[in-house]
Each structure stands twice: as structure tokens, then as C-alpha cells.
């Protein structure tokens, strides 16, 4: 896992690219394209299952599809992690000082809590 400083204060989270892609990019689909398409497929499936879950009346079907949805999420996750580990996924990191600011802001909002804890 590397943190590569860019010209701004931003850092990019990524690992060194080890996945082998063709040196010259051509119109042919490559391994990265295929994984990206799988990612989109799992995403589409899980969205569909999520909508269906809110509509089912059949009890056992509801339980079954909830498990299928969970499997689908896991498949999506595994695919994403594989891409990330091959270095095919770059994620800009949120600068820590801005995270700290948000933490302060939302900590203050706890004063608005309706429940005594």
C-alpha cells in the first residue's frame, strides 16, 4: 500500500500495479475491463435484490433472497479487493485535517440528541 503525494495536499491510496495488462491498449477487452464489468454486474444484481426484498410477501423467499443478496455483496467486495491488490484501483484519500474538522462539527451536534445516554 503506497501513499503517493500529488501536487496538492492530496494522497492517492494504491498498491504497486502487478496485474499484467497489454502494454499497448487496443479495442480488445483486457482483464481489467472484465473485472470492471463483473463489478458492475454484481452491483446491478444487488440493487435488484434490494428492491425486491422490500416487496416480497412470501416469508421464506424473503429470508432466502436476503442471503443471496449478502453473497452478491461479498462477490462484489472480493472482486473490488482483487482489483485493488493488482493496482488497478486508485483512491484519492480525504485530507486528514478536513476529517478532523468534520469530527468536531458532528461531535457538537451530539448536543442535539433527543435521548439521554
Amino acid at each position: 500500500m503506497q501513499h503517493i503525494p500529488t501536487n496538492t495536499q492530496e494522497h492517492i491510496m494504491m498498491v504497486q500495479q502487478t496485474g499484467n495488462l497489454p502494454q499497448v491498449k487496443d479495442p480488445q477487452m483486457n482483464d481489467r475491463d472484465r473485472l470492471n464489468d463483473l463489478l458492475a454486474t454484481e452491483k446491478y444484481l444487488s440493487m435488484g435484490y434490494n428492491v425486491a426484498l422490500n416487496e416480497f410477501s412470501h416469508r421464506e423467499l424473503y429470508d432466502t433472497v436476503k442471503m443471496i443478496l449478502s453473497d452478491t455483496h461479498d462477490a462484489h467486495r472480493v472482486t473490488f479487493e482483487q482489483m485493488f491488490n493488482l493496482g488497478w484501483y486508485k483512491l484519492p484519500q480525504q485530507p486528514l485535517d478536513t476529517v478532523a474538522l468534520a469530527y468536531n462539527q458532528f461531535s457538537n451536534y451530539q448536543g442535539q440528541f433527543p435521548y439521554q445516554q
Partner: protein
Amino acid sequence: MQQQSQQMKQQIKHQYAGQYSQLSTKDFNYIKDHLSWELLAAKKCAHYAQESQDPQLATLINQIGLMHQRHYNTLLQYVNPQSVQD
């Protein structure tokens, strides 16, 4: 004997009728949609695994494809008149 078990099934059906154990038209239509998607996903995975340049990726993609095939078979049981799940 056959008749008896059929009768039992009918009784059970009746018994659970209030517990959402029957397919509504909506349930039914969703299942058919999902079956089509799962089949397509399984086919796509098999195809991509075959094209994959990296054997490790091929294995992963095939595992996901198998998962979709399993999901297909699971869902299919809900439209199987022979299954006890109705």
C-alpha cells in the same frame, strides 16, 4: 399414500396461509427476473474466465460464476410445483 401426502400438503398450505407462505404475483415476477439475471451472470463469468490472461483471476471469476449458478438453482425451487416450499 400418495393421496394422503397430497392432503397433508394441502393442510399445511392452509395452515400457513396466514404466514405469507404463498407466492404473490409480485413475488413470482421478481423470481423470474432474478432467474434471468443469475443465468446471464453465470454465463458471463464462464466466458470471462476463459478469456482471462491470469489463471488466478480465472479461478476467482469461475467461483463467482458458480455462486450465480447456485443462486439460480435456489430461486428455481420457489417456482417448482413439486417443492414443499409453497
